[in-house]
């Protein structure tokens, strides 16, 4: 019995030595932090997730810009949806959008980089406004924080006003710096982009006076002022609508029978009324 106890003691003594495994759980495959420039660049690229991917497709189907023809989109075209239908939309807005922008913003503030902070504020305002326009009430203050698994949903109007305030702050900080970058091409400054966005969101609120003054402040004089992402033929550099329709999901999404196609094709009086309604529809929903 003594022998057993002795052997046991030895074996268990060997175990007390933590160095055998120490440090092995530090992931050698991934970084635990990244420079602000790369995160800000992601935040810009995420605009394509909103404007070219699932959010654009779903809203396009519901506003009859497109017709969902095939598979899941055919079901969606009949307005049959489940709560899971919007999961990737929500992820594009919050996890891949706002959270990353807030990380970049915090880094900008920490580094005293007010231009980067301003850019982040404008991008943040864009994401909140677009989401509020589509969904109505959404989480606004209680975001990007695991402490809020069931965040408070704040009113649509107050979210958009809050977002406009962010953009205003962003315009003041990023101001005259060029909004041309690795992702988006434009001749505009960040102030011009910010004001153009404000015009869009005031329009959504029906505040014509502020929409007008923001549009004037944006001072877009030519198409060069547009903020465009340029696509290439490199794999995964192509336009997402093209990837979706040509490479991945042929024939899911068409414009045949869409309201938009009717509008373009038709000349009768009835369509004039439709065209008026359509205008209102597009402005408040997109």
């Amino acid at each position: 019995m003594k022998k057993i106890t002795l052997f046991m003691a030895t074996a268990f003594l060997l175990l007390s030595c933590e160095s055998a495994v120490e440090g092995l759980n530090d992931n050698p495959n991934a970084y635990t932090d990244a420079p602000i420039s790369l995160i800000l660049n992601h935040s810009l690229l995420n605009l394509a997730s909103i404007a070219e991917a699932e959010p654009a497709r779903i809203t396009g189907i519901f506003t009859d810009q497109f017709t969902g023809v095939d598979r899941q989109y055919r079901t969606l075209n009949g307005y049959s949806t489940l709560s899971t239908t919007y999961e990737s939309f929500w992820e594009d807005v919050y996890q891949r959008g706002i959270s990353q922008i807030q990380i970049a913003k915090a880094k900008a503030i920490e580094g005293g980089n007010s231009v980067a902070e301003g850019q982040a504020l404008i991008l943040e305002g864009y994401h909140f406004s677009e989401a509020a326009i589509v969904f109505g009430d959404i989480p606004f203050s209680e975001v990007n924080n695991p402490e809020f698994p069931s965040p408070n949903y704040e009113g649509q109007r107050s979210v958009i006003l809050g977002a406009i305030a962010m953009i205003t702050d962003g315009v003041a900080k990023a101001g005259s710096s060029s909004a041309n970058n690795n992702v988006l091409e434009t001749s505009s400054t960040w102030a011009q982009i910010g004001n153009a966005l404000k015009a869009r969101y005031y329009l959504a609120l029906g505040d014509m006076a502020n929409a007008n003054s923001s549009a004037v402040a944006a001072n877009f004089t030519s198409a060069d002022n547009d903020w465009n992402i340029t696509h290439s033929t490199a794999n995964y550099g192509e336009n997402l609508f093209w990837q979706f329709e040509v490479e991945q999901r042929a024939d899911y999404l068409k414009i045949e029978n869409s309201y938009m196609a009717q509008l373009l094709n038709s000349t009768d009086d009835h369509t004039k009324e439709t065209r008026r309604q359509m205008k209102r529809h597009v402005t408040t929903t997109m």
Partner: protein
Amino acid sequence: MSFDEVNREHAKQGVFGQGRGGVWNSNASGLSWGDKIADRSGAANGVDQTGAYFVGGITGDTYYPITAKNSREVYNDANREMVFRSGLTQNYGLSVNYSGENSDTFISYSRLDQKGVINGLSDYVRNTFRVNTTNNLTDRITTRINTSFIDIKSNRIQTGSNLNGLYLGYLRTAPDFSNEDYIGTYYSGPDDAVGVPNSHRSYRARQIGQGSGIYNNPGWTINEINNPNEVMRFTVSPKIEIALQDNLKFTARYGLDFYTDRRENYYPVKSAGDWNGGGFYKNDYSERIQNLNLFFNGQNSITSDIDLTWVVGYVVEDNEYYRFSSSTNNFLNPDPSKQLVGNAVNGDILASEYKSRDKKTSGYYSLSFGVFDNLLIDLTGRLERNTTLSDLNFYPSASAGYVIKEASNTGVLSFLKLRASYGQVGIAPSLYINESNFITSTAGSEGWGDYIDGANYGGTVRRSATQGNPDLKVERVTETEFGFDARFFDNKLTFGATYYNRLTTDGILQLETPPSTGFTERYANAAEISNKGIELDFSYNLISDTDLSVNLFGNFTAYKNIVESLPDVSRVLLNGFTSTGSVVKEGESFAAIFGGAYERNADGSIATDSSGFPLIDDEQQVIGDPNPDYRAGLGANIDYKNFNLSFLFETSQGNDMWGGTQGVLYYFGIHPDTANESVAPVDLPIYNSSSVIPAGTTFRGNIGDFGGGQVALQENWYRTNGGGFGDLDEQFVKDASWIKLREISLNYTLPESILGAIRAKSGQVGVAGRNLFLITDFAGVDPEVNLSGASKGRGLDYFTNPGTKSVLLNVKLNF
């Protein structure tokens, strides 16, 4: 040698042609909702010979765009024969055993050569060499070295939810399209003298090979897409045993298991999905697993009635893993005869790697007490240190066996032993889930396959959607077991019964979190899962004479596997799709099937809309349980002179399965159910439409009644919520109980007369069958097949490659 066949297939209709709305159309999303084939004139198809055309690489036939589909030909059988074949497995082995005075050497070689049941590039060859030697160095020291080398070369056909998977293209192919000329030369018009060689022709909008496949032609999938794999595995395990005293021994055992695994996927130019320009993916994996086990063991008598056998040891396990991957997209040189990494411009050549190292050290003891010859008590303990946990963890176990009766031939009962045990094991958290990472990022909703890589835009990084958790604890599994073994009638009948209760606490799961928190998933010690069950087995020697013996045996198991606690999340997806999957959900069976369900009225009936079609609940629900109520087996072993016959039936009852394939075949109008023709008894409402099918009209489809009156289940219904792409997954969850003849074999032991003639010591020839018959109500596939293979998530069928049945011939000779 074994001959294999597909054991169950999905049926396809041959009544209606490609198209939609009852009109033939080669460009209609791959649907078979076209015209009735029997109503066609039967003349040759009208074609347009003024423009582009295709010359088939298999038959040499020329294909022009069809302008009038007149032919009544149906190709379901020919298309099937193109895909399946009889598989053949050959297994040879040779082994030599040599015993010297103080040593013993065993050398063996075996080769397994398999041609799969799918035509084309589906094969598997395994060569195994083994050398084991044992040496008695002195009468107290013994060494043994076991070594092996295994080389596996294989090629597989892609499966599942995959544009390049076999079943996706094969099952969806319209009945009036021949897949035979899947490859050939495309000419853009009569003036095109050169054409595009290696063009890909497929039924869906590519009938003259005008572009990459939307789905691959199955001929392309099985013959042109190449998925070679080579695994080389080397193991060596030396061991030394030193007898320190008569009742005390020291053993040191080392094991090294090293393998390299090279997997390649080659998609030639014009393949479906991303691979219009071709793609070549190469992954090199290597892993080194080492373990060292040092232990003392001995025997002592504590008193005259109590004996002790004990082991005390120390183990180190060390596992190093490495992967290097490269991808080459949009080939510069489209020639498929060479498959080269780097055959593209810079932006289209990517590399990545992954490395990990995991270690575990543990000390353990095992004490076995024998008391009065009829009570055996085992006490063991294990103290572990893991890479991912800061604390040491101790796992105890204890078991006892008590023989109540071991006796004479008197009475009914000849032996009875009671057993009880208790034990704990721990599962440490996986590596690297302690921290949140920053990763290179993309834009787009990737679930659909389309995305923009930030590398094309100056590089982008985001914080990963998975929240790391530095505070994870060990996941503990505690098991209690009771049982008995009994023998009756002079040991003729044996019967055993076991009850077990296994409780997993602090189960580590990847939980979904609302994206507004900044993450979509987090790791947590979240689940408590119980698994309680019984296992019964029996064996009965019905006859045991010199010439004839008959033995019956069987088993029965039943369990309840319940997720007792999993707060804060709707469910955790194990495998499958977010629309329908196998999940962990509080209060439900483990791996329950979860998806879109009927909206129910208070009385449980299906809620319907004003025209009688079902409404769908906004929230997904549990719609099936893949766990069986019970499983059982019954077999027999019969020896008559030199012959041996044995067989085993198995069954699983009460398990559900999601027929995802069936749902999608409904959508496409290729499932035989959708080819029924019905006569409307009354005016029948049509789904999503204000019009009706007037009474007395014959229409393609079925008549349904969800409780709100009769409705027409026709194209409108099947292509939305009546089909697999709709929201109503519940309708495709079916009972998948099965009964199988798992195995039957007949063997003949060669008599002396034959053995003498071939100078063999012993020998046997035999024939056996595996899965020869299957009874199940689940249509289209063997319910033991699963979308994600052998995984925790189960009960899912979605274009999964089929199961097999086999006939085996074998010859064994010992010289």
